[in-house]
Every structure is written in C-alpha cells, then in structure tokens.
C-alpha cells in the first residue's frame, strides 16, 4: 500500500498499470492529487479551476469499467491538467482572458476527447498567459502562477500552469500549447519534460487560436517515457482540423512514415531508446547567446554524458538566429489579429455595458475585455497586415520564415537532433520583465524558430543552478519534420544517461512546498 502522497510522485505509466491491475483505485489516485492540489495551490496557483467533483465522477466511472472487466485505455485513471485554452464541454474555458470569463464550451477539443477515450481523469484547467501570449504566465487576467521551485519566480509561459502542476506533483501529465515556446520554455523553468510535436501531428480543433500556422498542442510529464505515453493518445489526423495530417502516409512524412506505423509509435520508440549511433548537433549560436554560466555548464555536461553513452556530438550553426524573434513578431501578431477578430461582444464573451452603436460595441467590448499585451499584439498584427505595410512587413516576415526553416533543415542534415539550452537563463523573478515587452519577447530566442519551421521540439531537465534555492535547467532537442517518436526516444535515452547527475532527469522534487 503506497501512502497517498507517494501516488503524486508516481509516473503516469506506473499509475495506469497499477489502476488497471486494481492495486489502487482510480478514485484513490484522483483523491491523492486533489489533496495535493489543495495543499500546494495557495502558493503555486497552477489551476484556474480544479474540477474536483467531475474528476471524482470520472475516476469512479473508470473503476466501474474495471470492475466490469473492461480496459479503460492507456491512461487508465491517470489525472491530467488541461491548459485553459483547450475547450472542455460544460467546463468554463477562459484562455486566461477576461473577454472569455464565464464562457462554457458546448464541445470538447479533440485532444480532450482523446484523453477521455484513453481513460484519463481531467483534474481542472491550468493557468496561462492571456491567449497564450507571454513567457511567464504573468499576463493571465486571473493572476500569475508561481514557480514550484521558488515562489518569487515565474514558472515560464505561456503554459506555466500546466508545467507548474506537473512539477509540483499535482498531476503526472498535463496538456499545453506551444506557439513560440509555450510548452518547452515553462517545462525548462519548472524542471519537467515538455514536447512540441511537428506542426500537423496533433489536432488543433478546440484549441483557442493564437497563431494558427504556429500553434501545436503537446504534453507535459515528469519524464520522456510518460510524455511518449501521452503522445500515443494525442497524435493523428482529425476530420475537424485539415492541418492535422496522417504521418503514416508517405506523402506526409516521407521516409519517416514507417516510424509511425507501430501501434504505439512513441512508447515503442522510447522503450528501445539508446544514444548508440545518435549524432547530436550542438548549436554554436545558442551557446554563444547563453550568458548564464550555470545554464551553459549544465548543457555542456549533459553533452559529455551523451558522448559517454555512445552519442557523437558535433557543432552546427544556425546563422539566422538573430532574425528569429523579429520574424516571429511579424508572423505571429498578424495571425493573432485575424484570429482575435472573432471576439466582438456578440457571439460569446464580454460585452460592454456602455450604450453604443454596433462598431462602438466591438471597440469597447474588446478594449475592456483584452489585457494590455493582447491589445499590443492585435495592434501590431493589424498594422503588419494593413494596406501600405503588408508587403514590407507581413510578406517580408513570411519570406524570412521560409529562410529560417531552410537554415534549420540544412543544420539538421547529417544529425539526428539539434541541441542547446531551452532558455538562456533559469526562472526569473516575478515582475522582472513584465513591464518591458521586448525583454519578455527575447526570452523565446531559442524556441520560436522551431514553430516557424514546423519542427518537433523537446525540453527535458538537465541540471540545476547552485545556491540556496536551486532552479531547474532545461535542454532542448529539435528534430526533422515528422521525426517525433525518434526525437522523444533520443530524449528518453538522454534522460537515462543523465539520471543521477545532480538531480537531472526530472527525479528531484521541489523543496519548500507543503
């Protein structure tokens, strides 16, 4: 019999096995996580709402199915936190914005539906920067989440609630979304694993749109094996999202189509993970831009471990790195301004109380409902797309994006993955960048290009800073399009090589939490 608290530090795969074998009930697993959330939420504030009653009911339904001899699925009784920009039927979904306060979706996002079909229990909705626009979760209209390792610091963002929930033991798995680093960067700052799939690997139906050509949904977990377990549930085509493709089709994934043909391609690849014969390309520019000596040191030490485990490491160059953030600014805000045009005070969401004509209704409802960062991005995106500036800014951005993608594909030629720090520095203080938008944008220097190039990206823990309150350090791996199962398997092999190295590999628990 495991103490209830220990259930909160048991991985998803182990929990699913134990519930399936009826060693522990799904309800007991859910209760343990609800108790953990009740204890740590006053400090961490990872959730905008914990749906305790619904979670208990879902867990009891899993237990009833097991009692009837059914197999509820690969996530049998596993609690999952869901980022609050993913629609959940009957459960308020706000995207961290006042403009959507009180919005109750009449449908589930495809990824939420797939969680339910896999036997998972949804614990609640995780905090985020408003409309996923930010890198610290401080842009949430409902207050910031704090870093489980140090409450004076940010968890990263925009999926800061999802990352913090997993790192604090409130959920073994979480869903996030990543438009410019919003899964990988908070995973790095909170010391967990975060994976952004190849664009098109996972359905975006029911994901509240920010920048549609960049957004992807992906998993958080405490190790790569659990992230693989969740990816096996999430990926695959969806008739409701024409950009969600079937990589088993060689017209989509080319020679990598075979990788996806196994029944559970991610878990299968992760189970046989090895660094033997793997070539990693360490990105010269990313190391040069990493001024934090401890972050650089942890990444270099991880590469030594990788070599010792059989990998070969060579230096590669991403010569267009300085253009990444400006290009992302143009492309992502243009798409955001179009996507957010739907918030009009008419169909759903906030409506001004002022008595005005219909255009005034739009203008006031939007100005009252959107926070300052969202207003800035709508404004910039509108400018970029406006008559007279479209060619010089938006088209230029699209062409620059194409060159950045080509730069990545060239760097990936002959290596299995690119490697470097996920973030140039560990978690920063709350408020340190909140009043300087450009300083906040700069945080994503190593992550935005992955989205612009449509590539899969993974962040995994590779060490800690020194000092009285150690902070996690994340290492990023970037792969070729549709190499996702292989990339996560490389991550798995690397985390095994790092196990025991100063708490790297996600095994360490945050101190100072209840």
């Amino acid at each position, binding site marked *: 019999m495991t103490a209830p608290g220990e259930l909160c530090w048991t991985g998803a795969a182990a929990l699913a096995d134990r519930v399936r074998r009826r060693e522990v009930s799904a309800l007991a697993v859910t209760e343990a996580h609800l108790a953990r959330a009740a204890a740590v939420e006053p400090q961490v504030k990872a959730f905008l709402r914990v749906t305790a009653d619904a979670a208990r009911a879902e867990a009891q339904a899993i237990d009833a199915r097991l009692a009837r001899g059914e197999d509820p699925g690969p996530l049998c009784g596993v609690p999952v936190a869901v980022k609050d920009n993913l629609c959940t039927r009957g459960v308020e979904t706000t995207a961290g914005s006042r403009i959507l306060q009180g919005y109750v979706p009449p449908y589930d996002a495809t990824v939420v539906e797939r969680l339910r079909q896999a036997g998972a229990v949804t614990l609640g909705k995780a905090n985020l920067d408003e409309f996923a626009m930010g890198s610290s979760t401080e842009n949430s209209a409902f207050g910031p989440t704090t870093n489980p390792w140090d409450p004076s610091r940010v968890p990263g963002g925009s999926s800061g609630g999802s990352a913090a929930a997993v790192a604090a033991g409130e959920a073994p798995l979480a869903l996030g979304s990543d438009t410019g680093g919003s899964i990988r960067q908070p995973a790095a700052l909170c010391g967990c694993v975060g994976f952004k799939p190849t664009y098109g690997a996972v359905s975006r139906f029911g994901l509240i749109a920010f920048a549609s050509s960049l957004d992807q949904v992906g998993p958080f977990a405490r190790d790569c094996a659990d992230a693989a377990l969740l990816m096996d549930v999430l990926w695959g085509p969806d008739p409701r999202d024409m950009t969600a493709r079937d990589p088993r089709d060689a017209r989509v994934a080319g020679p990598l189509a075979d990788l996806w043909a196994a029944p559970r391609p991610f878990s299968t690849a992760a189970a046989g993970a090895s660094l033997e014969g793997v070539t990693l390309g360490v990105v010269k520019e990313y190391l040069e831009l990493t001024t934090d000596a401890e972050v650089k040191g942890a990444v270099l030490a991880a590469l030594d471990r990788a070599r010792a485990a059989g990998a070969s490491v060579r230096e590669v160059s991403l010569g267009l790195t300085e253009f990444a*953030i400006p290009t992302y600014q143009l492309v992502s805000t243009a798409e955001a301004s179009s996507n957010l045009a739907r918030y009009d005070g008419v*169909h759903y969401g906030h409506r001004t109380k002022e008595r005005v004509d219909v255009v005034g209704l739009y203008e006031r409802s939007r100005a009252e409902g959107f926070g300052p960062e969202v207003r800035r991005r709508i404004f910039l995106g509108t400018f970029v797309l406006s008559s007279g500036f479209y060619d010089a800014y938006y088209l230029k951005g699209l*062409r620059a994006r194409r060159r950045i993608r080509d730069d990545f594909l060239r760097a990936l030629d002959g290596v299995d993955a690119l490697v470097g720090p996920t973030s140039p520095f560990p978690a920063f203080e709350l408020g340190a960048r909140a009043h300087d938008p450009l300083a906040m944008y700069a945080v994503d220097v190593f992550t935005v290009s992955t989205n612009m190039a449509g590539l899969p990206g993974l962040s995994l823990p590779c060490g800690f800073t020194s000092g009285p309150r150690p902070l996690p350090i994340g290492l990023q791996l970037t792969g070729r399009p549709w190499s996702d199962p292989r990339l996560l398997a490389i991550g798995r092999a690397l985390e095994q090589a790092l196990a025991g190295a100063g708490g790297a590999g996600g095994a360490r628990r945050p101190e100072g939490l209840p």
Partner: protein
Amino acid sequence: MSAPLDPRTPEGVAHIARLSRLALAPEELSAMAAHLGKILDAVSVLERLDTQGVPAGLHDEALSEDALRADAVAPSLPVDEALRNAPARGVGGFEVPAVLAE
C-alpha cells in the same frame, strides 16, 4: 491610393486602433505608438536578410489538397446550445444594437 499613414504619428496610430476595433484612451494610443516604434526598430534588422525570390508560402507541413475530409452530413450544434454563451440573444439569434438608422 493615398500614401499610408505613418503609424507613429497620432493620426496613424488612431487609424490602426480603428482597424483593430479597439477603443483606446489617448494615453494608451501614445503608449501604443511608442511600443510600435520600438518593435519596428527591432524588426528593421530584417532589412539585412536577403529574401529576394524566397517563396512566401507556409511550411510544407501545412495545407494540402489531400487533407480534405469526406463531404458527409453530420449533426450540427442545436441553436439553443450555440446561443448559450451569447451576452444578449433574441428570438433564435444574437442580439446587436440597431445597424440601420430608424
């Protein structure tokens, strides 16, 4: 066509705010102009990136014709459900202020 308004001038920034459908107070308009100025300065590094002849299309993982689903009839959201989140609703529809003058 007249020359586009410089977005860093008061007239230019008010024009973009109108296109954005955002009712911004005067002090926020000037803050927005200042922010836009900083972004445009930062973005100006792209002038050094040669994009002549580079296609402006999305990456290859995006849309392609064989991603279309079968054209099959499926149930849609009932009207009541679709209207449930509307801030104001009339008879089977969304309610808005009068668009046409009386």
